[in-house]
């Protein structure tokens, strides 16, 4: 049977506010356990939450960026469950009236086409603390530093049909929150993590199959792998006549498998009800419009501008705009060298290649935009050739300094002095009488051989245009 995969994602984005969503404690990552947990975060008797308006502003920005309805009145609910890292034994979330309603984004597929994915809703909530199971002599330690960190949970429609589409969706959401500056999107630190609902149905059937929820996946690569192994697992069950059980599963990246965490029967009844400690969040149409004014240019708009104003191809424009750090870098370089295509080729070519090779995120690229500008200017003013430039770039990437320093130190300056180039040509001509005769008898293609020889003799420093021109003159019969 032909199966169709149906995937919906719930992405938890940590909003980059200075203090927590309901207390004044810091949200900075990596502090000593429980040093950033105040009386409110500890859930002491008598304490009350006070909502941090920054979280609202950032949530609204996201909603506007995905073309969603912003609910002028949204309500915090309590999600009740017992767990040691949940100090109040409830999480403050938004079930019935979320801040962000229906919206959508367009994702880029591998064949270059786009697909629209629905965003069902996005709601604000607080993060839980962490349970620490190591180094406690068989007991469990609780770190409440993360408790109360603001999250925006973005729920998609079940619109994705493959793991690749799910990853493309996740990347696009990541791109948008980074562009907006509403989250640092740091996946290692858990600022951006994802639950995936995966099910299969016979192709052509409208009704959804039974789904499994894969919890807490924190990298693009793992999302793809986790979904794919889950698809295989469900397909095996269905092909052999079995039925998929609705349950929550965990992905084990080391074994590359998913395993059951809890079944539907064991699922908590969260007993949601409106939190009586917090007033409904009310935001006026005027306030929403004021926030809209602050929205930066978003990836789709930037991509269109690059195509229309800078004449880039769709593919290059997409590739440059998905990561805000890369786009900012590109714009700085492009403006300084006034050559949109050259800047694009370098950034998508040499810069991206070395970053990928070294598994470095764009924002951590060791060659700054200013450094790359310095290099490209030397190509433009014929100080070096494009080929030498690659050598200089590698040296810059390795931390050997700016382009000019490297060119000087390595003596890579291009030879443009006609006399010096002629001297080399004369030598090459003298050493290759046979090829000269062949060329003069009409074998035009041999010009390449002579250019190569001259470039080699000049250690690549001769200006290739001049070499070509002078060779043509010299070799004339």
């Amino acid at each position: 049977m032909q199966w169709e995969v149906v995937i919906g994602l719930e992405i938890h984005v940590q909003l980059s506010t200075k203090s927590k969503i309901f207390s004044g404690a810091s949200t900075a990552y990596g502090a000593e356990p429980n040093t950033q947990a105040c009386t409110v975060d500890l859930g002491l008797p008598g304490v009350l939450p006070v909502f941090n308006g920054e979280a609202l502003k950032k949530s609204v920005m996201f909603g506007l960026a995905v073309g969603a309805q912003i609910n002028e009145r949204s309500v915090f609910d309590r999600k009740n469950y017992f767990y040691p890292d949940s100090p109040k034994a409830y999480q403050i979330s938004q079930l019935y009236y979320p801040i962000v309603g229906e919206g959508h984004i367009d994702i880029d597929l591998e064949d270059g086409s786009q697909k629209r994915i629905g965003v069902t809703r996005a709601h604000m909530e607080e993060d839980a603390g962490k349970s620490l199971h190591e180094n406690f002599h068989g007991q469990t330690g609780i770190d409440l530093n993360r408790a109360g960190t603001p999250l925006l949970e973005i729920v998609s429609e079940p619109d994705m049909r493959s793991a690749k589409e799910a990853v493309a969706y996740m990347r696009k959401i990541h791109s948008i929150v980074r562009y907006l500056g509403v989250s640092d999107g740091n996946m290692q630190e858990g600022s951006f993590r994802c639950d995936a609902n995966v099910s299969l149905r016979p192709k052509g059937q409208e009704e959804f199959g039974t789904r499994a929820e894969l919890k807490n996946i924190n990298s693009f690569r793992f999302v793809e792998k986790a979904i794919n192994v889950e698809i295989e697992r469900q397909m095996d069950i269905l092909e052999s006549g079995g039925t998929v059980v609705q349950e929550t599963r965990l992905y084990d990246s080391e074994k590359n498998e998913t395993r059951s965490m809890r079944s539907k029967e064991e699922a908590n009844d969260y007993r949601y009800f409106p939190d009586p400690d917090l007033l409904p969040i009310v935001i006026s149409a005027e306030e929403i419009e004021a926030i809209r004014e602050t929205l930066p240019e978003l990836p789709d708009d930037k991509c269109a501008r690059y195509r229309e104003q800078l004449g880039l191809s769709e593919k290059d424009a997409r590739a440059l705009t998905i990561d805000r750090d890369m786009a900012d870098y590109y714009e700085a370089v492009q403006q300084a060298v006034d050559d949109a295509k050259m800047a694009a080729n370098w950034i998508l070519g040499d810069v991206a290649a070395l970053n990928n090779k070294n598994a470095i995120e764009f924002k951590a690229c060791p060659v700054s935009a200013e450094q790359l500008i310095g290099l490209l200017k030397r190509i433009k003013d014929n100080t070096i050739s494009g080929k030498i430039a690659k050598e200089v770039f590698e040296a810059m990437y390795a931390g050997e300094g700016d382009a000019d320093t490297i060119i000087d130190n390595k003596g890579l300056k291009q030879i443009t002095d006609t006399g010096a180039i002629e001297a080399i040509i004369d030598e090459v001509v003298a050493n290759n009488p046979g090829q000269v005769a062949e060329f003069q008898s009409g074998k035009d293609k041999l010009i390449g051989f002579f250019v190569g020889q001259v470039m080699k003799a000049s250690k690549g420093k001769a200006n290739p245009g001049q070499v070509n021109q002078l060779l043509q003159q010299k070799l004339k019969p």
Partner: protein
Amino acid sequence: MHNKTIAELSAGLKSGEFSSVELTQSYLDRINSLDKQINSFITVTPDLALEQAKQADEQRAAGNVGILNGIPLAQKDIFCTKDVKTSCGSKMLDPFISPYNATTINKFNDTGAVMLGKTNMDEFAMGSSNETSWYGPVKNPWQQESVPGGSSGGSAAAVAARLAPAATGTDTGGSIRQPASFCGITGLKPTYGRVSRYGMIAFASSLDQAGPMTRTAEDAALMLNVMAGLDPRDSTSVDEPVPDYTASLNDSMAGLKIGLPKEYFSEGLDDAVAKVIESAVKEYEKMGAVIKEISLPTSNLAVPTYYIIAPSECSSNLSRMDGVRYGYRCDDPEDLNDLYIRSRGEGFGAEVKRRILVGTYALSEGFYDAYYVKAQKTRRLITNDFNQAFADVDVIMGPAAPSTAFKIGELTDDPITMYLSDIYTIAVNLAGLPGMSVPAGFVNDMPVGLQLIGKHFAESKLLNIAHQFQQATDWHTQAPAAFK
């Protein structure tokens, strides 16, 4: 000295008749010798009290001080007090020493008031008789076989027995007004949001409100002057100007329109209590007030509505008492579930468990709409009733409780009748209105309270109405024989 009101004591401190240290010591001595009869305090804090009194005397010597400076007060053990045990009447919070002060405690500290100790209460404020306290029942100073009411029974009894000039209470369904009525003192539950809830251990967050328990309306005004106001730590506190609540105490009653809800004078009300209330209303007529019969047709829905909303909220509020971070923890838990189950099973008393179970049930999947959502709708109807009534009248009057104090143990096996003892007070919490209980007479030597219900933020008006009654009568000056 112990029969003086706050206003009188403050004058004595001001004139130098006595110092705060002397005053505080005299109350500590009374508590020490008399409280064993009524068990109104869970914790007495003599060292802290005398230290605060000494500081208050120094502040007074140094310059201008507030009226409550140097005045000893009792705090209900529901307010978190830094470095002093806060039990909320429960084993579950034994031991719990709060690292912070409730806003109300801070406000009294800032004005130089003295804390004598923490008063007994029904466990987590759930009860109408003070019998659910893990620290044992409080006895009514007027007749020690009787309950003092609840949940602020310790505060009410301490004030009635002259063990403190005044105390704080909290009122979720009548917990200030009903014990004030049973103990013959003056109790005010302000408008919801008038006094900060920060640091007040939550029972039902949308209903809880702190207020003063005093011997006179004037003292209640002085206390509320300190307690009221917006608190940035409590999102449900209201940004409404705080007047000087003593300013209009002497306004005339001429032309005051009093509404008497017929539902409050029907079946279930003790005849003798009804007579006391009727004669109190006559006092107002004498002062020129106009009486009007009104109807609050949804009155019968208040108790069932309350017993969905309050348990629902409490089931969630009390979940944090899980034995993990503070308070009671069972011995040798086998695993996490065992820790939760036994800590909570051993730590909470029967009434608290009953309400947690009711609330958990009401919120559970499949029942939420039928119970919680419907109760919220009914709550709106009840509020609408009051709003409609207040279009025609300035104040609503009636009994604070259907009877005088019942006997200890009399209703412990009859929770429904116990719940009905709050029948006249509960609707006021559901509507978020201010309410008062004022001593209005006696039945068989037991006090009866007249309830006054006002519009939102009409505390000044209620205090004025209560004060005028106390100018015309002396019920509020009566003291129980054993504590004169």
